[in-house]
């Protein structure tokens, strides 16, 4: 292409744009409370090594009865406890690093991005973006699952964290993402271990599958499901739009009387000891209207927030299982207490979790190369390009699903 003749006009030859140095506005990533709250609850348990993460649990009692004194009994042995098994999952973010352009902090490169003409340090931006990308993947994956696809699980996510969707399930009813998880931590639900690893999802929509409303009764019911199993739910997580629905439901019971300087400062709500926080990346059907979520990615393909499988936590309609036998009542509703109608197209809408934070574990490796550690791989015989990888080995799972509960099928 022929250059302009002359090369610069008078304006361009004598002016630069007004630039504020070292300021780059973040118009993509969001801050999220879920993992922060879990870490504060002390569930950070570094993974020190091994082929898997094993968590023992009790599912059975020993034998006993009221008997007549002097009688003999047959003493038998039954299995009472076993263990869950979770694998460490590898998360990586990567960028090409061209030291013609960028300096990596060593001062040896960055022919272009350096000196007084540098507006912002692009290497620093890349570092922060890789960290944010991994955090976003982990956060979104913590609401999804880490199992292989099956007849009841729509997507294969064996490389992802074993998140809430698979833990808060009972092997019979669908999760907010429409999956039924027959296994958790490698154990078969409703088999030898019975309901030990079950949590019954609570559906708040209509019998025809449309979204319903959350109200005080639903919140109490969700709380009750946790408490009746001995749980002490202390953390509520829902999308910001789900939080709107919860706040509106509670506010409907009262009226502000002051008409001056209202201070509605609802960063969080406490309901029966459950601190409910809005998480922009928690599952939602509405958040995608305001937040750029995968898989749509615009012309450059990357202007969205994606989980470790390249999708997001946006909920979508699914068809509920066809319940048979004792699992369905005369009205075609699941008998598990989930309220899920049989064989209906369900709009999951917004999702609310009541969690006992102490029942979770976050398991990042203690090996610094894989705990947000960097690996730089030179491209053979290339004069300036390396591939730069930021890596994290971790998992997130729940040891006591029954102390936690999930509700879905309501709208803001």
């Amino acid at each position: 292409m022929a250059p302009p003749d002359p090369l610069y006009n008078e304006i361009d030859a004598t002016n630069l744009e007004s630039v504020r140095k070292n300021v780059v506005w973040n118009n993509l990533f969001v801050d999220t409370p879920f993992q922060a709250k879990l870490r504060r609850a002390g569930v950070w348990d570094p993974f020190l090594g091994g082929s898997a993460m094993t968590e023992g649990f009790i599912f059975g009692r020993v034998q006993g009865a009221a008997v007549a004194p002097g009688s003999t009994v047959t003493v038998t042995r039954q299995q009472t406890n076993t263990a869950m098994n979770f694998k460490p999952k590898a998360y990586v973010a990567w960028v090409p690093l061209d030291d013609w352009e960028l300096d990596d902090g060593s001062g040896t490169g960055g022919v272009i991005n350096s000196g007084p003409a540098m507006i912002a340090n692009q290497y620093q931006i890349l570092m922060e973006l890789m960290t944010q990308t991994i955090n976003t993947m982990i956060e979104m994956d913590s609401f999804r699952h880490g199992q292989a696809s099956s007849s009841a699980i729509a997507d294969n996510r064996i490389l992802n964290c074993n998140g809430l969707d698979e833990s808060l399930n009972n092997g019979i009813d669908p999760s907010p993402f429409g999956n039924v998880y027959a296994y958790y931590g490698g154990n078969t639900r409703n088999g030898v271990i019975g309901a030990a690893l079950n949590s019954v999802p609570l559906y708040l929509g209509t019998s025809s599958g449309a979204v319903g409303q959350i109200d005080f009764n639903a919140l109490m019911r969700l709380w009750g499901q946790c408490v009746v199993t001995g749980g002490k739910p202390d953390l509520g997580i829902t999308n910001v739009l789900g939080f709107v629905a919860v706040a509106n439901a509670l506010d409907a019971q009262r009226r502000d009387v002051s008409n001056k300087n209202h201070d509605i400062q609802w960063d969080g709500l406490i309901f029966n000891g459950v601190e409910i926080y809005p998480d922009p990346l928690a599952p939602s059907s509405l958040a995608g209207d305001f937040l750029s979520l995968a898989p749509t990615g615009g012309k450059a393909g990357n202007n969205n927030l994606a989980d470790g499988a390249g999708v997001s936590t946006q909920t979508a309609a699914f068809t509920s299982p066809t319940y048979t036998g004792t699992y369905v009542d005369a009205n075609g509703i699941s008998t598990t207490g989930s309220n899920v109608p049989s064989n209906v197209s369900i709009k999951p809408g917004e999702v609310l979790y009541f969690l006992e934070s102490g029942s979770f574990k976050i398991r990042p490796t203690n090996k610094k190369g894989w705990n947000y550690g960097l690996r730089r791989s030179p491209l053979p015989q290339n004069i300036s390009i390396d591939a730069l990888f930021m890596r994290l080995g971790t998992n997130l799972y729940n040891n006591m699903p029954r102390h936690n509960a999930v509700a879905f099928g309501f709208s803001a």
Partner: protein
Amino acid sequence: MAKTQTLPTWLCLNACDDKTASGFADVRTGEEIHGGALNLGDYFDLTEAEAKQLSYLTTGTLHAGRYRRVQVDSGATQAYVKTGTIGYMVSGLQPNLNVVTSYDKGIVGVHPVVFLNAITVGNFGFVQEMGIATCLCQAAALSAVGAAGNLVNAVATGVIDAPAATTTWTQNIVGIQLDPAMIATKIRVSLLWVAQQG
């Protein structure tokens, strides 16, 4: 030119229509800035998942295969450089695999490529030269019923046709269709072209 493992692109592969090979241009003069590590002739192989990640879905979904950074010759026919048409090496130039042109201005059969999107003649973008590509069937009636599994050929303007005889190897061979060929429809084709480097 080495096969690159670190691929800098500034847009999805099928959304590039750049005035410079690197994709960088001086905001004032429009002259190329040498940065970004993207060079004319860079080629690379993508898995299905990688190709999908680099797809501008409004234009189409890319599939597994080999892609190349090329310049569309300034003499190409603009209307024939669009999603799914076939291009070739420029007729009359020294052999150059990294400058391609439209069907009507090329040497049919020499370095065939599939255009991923409309690229302004003289500009730079990406084309596909191996793997599973999306090709545009001609608007006129097809020469034969194009069932999946049959050969397809390129014809005038760079679109493809399902020929009556599917066993004859000709210069304008494109590949084996994976979807039934239909008039003016984009279908997936497994390309039968040989790898060339330049």
